[in-house]
């Protein structure tokens, strides 16, 4: 789960990592209301907040999207008035498909250098890995390709943590100079604590700004938390609801189902009781030049009513024309699946078709139920046959359209 920048900053602040001073504009209900109605007189709360800042400031739209800066989501202001105007422009505006609901406003930090640092999970060695570069900032991804020597990587034994020699090594390899030992030592140890204690998959600071008086400041942060560990990260779990996620993901989550958006242009949906089979189905469908829009993983032992909800959610996406259900029942029972489908078909839009293939536990009972269903449903006996049917449907759809 990726945190919004301001939440990452909050986490860094908590561990004493130096970040630019600033405020978050979020729950200003009155302000928001005022903005919607564009009634300037109601914006006093906002103005007051802006008065107390140290200018110049940067106003940053809090949305989970790449290229935020280029899209106009990061703006500079020299006075409270300027800041206020930017806030009014940005709040509730649409940035690459996301509504801006929160702004982070921080003091603009000017530095003499921009570095990059992150701690990430090294899946190969099963250790946290520090990545550091003295060539940070927006060009870091290019540096990684054109000048990999400028990027230092070092694994951390999780039972030892960061000892001084790790910091020495990073400093030597990146040639930033031992004068930065204390600052780097302090920062790395704190960032490592963030990584471990918050169950991170990634804790990144970019840019890490070096000021004229040689302090280092985390000017922007990205934090990705392990979803499986959210049960022990209550603070972050609570924050999840604030994230702007696909409403279908949220809807599915309510029923403990996993909705996975695939290709926004795709018109086929895939549903199965395991992600391996979902990937296999998508692979076969895509190979036939068809496109999958979304998939839904039922997990093991799914019951009829949850299956019904899953179908409802997938087909509520107007782009989806065909749903392919492929079940290999172990704990999942084919009759439960069939019952869920039967229920769903009753509400099925006439333009949509379900192709279903069931195998495994209680297959016979399941098939009997499916035979009895009236509606746009085609039963097949293998994934390959299912994909063939999908293909035929596509052809006939296209020809009927044209």
């Amino acid at each position, binding site marked *: 789960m990726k945190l919004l920048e301001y939440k990452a900053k909050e986490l860094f602040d908590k561990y004493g990592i130096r970040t630019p001073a600033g405020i978050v504009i979020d729950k200003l209900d009155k302000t928001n209301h005022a903005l919607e109605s564009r009634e300037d007189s109601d914006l006093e709360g906002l103005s007051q907040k802006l008065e107390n800042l140290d200018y110049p400031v940067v106003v940053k739209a809090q949305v989970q999207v790449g290229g935020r800066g280029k899209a106009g989501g990061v703006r500079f202001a020299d006075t409270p008035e300027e800041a206020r105007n930017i806030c009014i422009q940005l709040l509730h505006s649409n940035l690459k498909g996301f509504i801006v609901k929160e702004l982070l406003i921080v003091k603009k930090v000017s530095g003499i250098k921009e570095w990059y640092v992150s701690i990430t*999970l090294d*899946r*190969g060695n*099963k*250790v946290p890995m520090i990545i550091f570069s003295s060539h940070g900032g927006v060009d870091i*991804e290019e540096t*990684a390709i054109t000048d990999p020597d400028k990027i230092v990587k070092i694994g951390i*034994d*999780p*039972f030892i943590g960061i000892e001084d020699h790790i910091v020495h090594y990073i400093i030597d390899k990146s040639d930033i100079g031992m004068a930065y030992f204390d600052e780097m030592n302090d920062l790395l140890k704190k960032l490592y604590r963030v990584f*471990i204690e918050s*169950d991170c*998959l990634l804790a990144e600071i970019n840019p890490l700004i070096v000021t004229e008086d040689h302090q280092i400041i985390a000017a922007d942060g990205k934090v990705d938390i*392990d*979803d*499986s*560990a959210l*049960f*022990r990260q209550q603070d972050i779990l609570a924050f999840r609801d604030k994230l702007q996620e696909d409403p279908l993901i949220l809807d599915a989550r309510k029923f403990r189902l*996993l909705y*996975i*958006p*695939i*290709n926004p242009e795709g018109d086929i949906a895939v549903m*199965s*009781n*395991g*992600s*391996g*089979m*979902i*990937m*296999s189905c*998508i*692979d*076969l469908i*895509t*190979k036939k030049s068809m496109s*999958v829009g979304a*998939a839904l*993983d039922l*997990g093991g032992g799914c019951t009829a009513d949850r299956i019904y909800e899953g179908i409802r959610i997938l087909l509520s996406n107007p782009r989806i024309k065909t749903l392919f259900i492929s079940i*290999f*029942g*172990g*704990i999942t029972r084919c009759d439960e699946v069939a019952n869920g489908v039967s229920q769903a078909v009753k509400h099925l839009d006439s333009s949509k078709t379900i192709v279903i293939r069931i*195998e*495994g*536990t209680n297959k016979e009972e399941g098939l009997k139920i499916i035979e009895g269903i009236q509606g746009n449903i085609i039963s097949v006996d*293998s*994934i*390959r046959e299912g994909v063939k049917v999908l293909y035929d449907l596509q052809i006939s759809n296209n020809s009927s359209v044209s």
Partner: protein
Amino acid sequence: MSILIDQNTRLIVQGITGREGTFHTEQMLAYGTNVVAGVTPGRSGQNVFGVPVYNTVKEAVEETNANATVLFVPAKYTAQGVMEAMQAGLKLILTISEHVPVQDMMKIHHFARKYQCRVIGPNSFGIISPGKAKAGFMAHKIFTPGSVAVMSRSATNCYETVFMMTNKGIGQSTCIGNGGDMIPGSSFVDLLPLLEEDVDTKVIVLIGEIGGSEEELAAEYIKQHVTKPVITLIAGKNAPKDTSMGHAGAIISPDGTGSAEIKEQRMQEAGALIAESTQHIVELLEEIL
């Protein structure tokens, strides 16, 4: 012969008194697995289908001479249960639950090296040596004894493949669910040496997927050490980047690491046969056998 699990396995079920634990203990016993003990703290003295329950794994091992364990415990207690099993001296530990925190598995990985034990899972269906024993929750009816070993990160792709194999009369020596998590206790490369050595395994099927580099490492090992034919399927060729495909481990990094293309390429270079689908695996097996 089979690997890891057979008639000589003396299995503990951790979490035996839970719903899943009890249900699958019955299933495993029915399949002929020698389940010798169960463990649930505070339930010592009870029994489940005649299997005695102990408070701790150490006591269970001391009393029954058990040599393997399977954990049917919730993800949040998995690390604790695995560590207990390691400390009790068990060398084969199977863990089933999905959504074990990554850092817990990181810890387990390092301790497993120290204790020189083999952890399979998490998010694994377990291991089955058809006709001999099973430890896990797989629907055992679809399996049949034979000479093809199957290792899979995905349960459904494995079932699908095995089901078709069995229908075509192709049996399995041992099938292992490596699990779909980011940090599996054992990955392909850890298990390949056992399969290469196993006299009853003639062909190795390796069902991988996007994410991580387990398939690349396996390819390197295959190139250098494996003489038996290897058939591989990589699922997720058309998955979008930076999106987890359900399995926590099935995710291509923003920089492209973990893509199916590289995995297939490495496997091809190592001399493995590349299958396009589960059905294709079975077709390739028919050609070879």
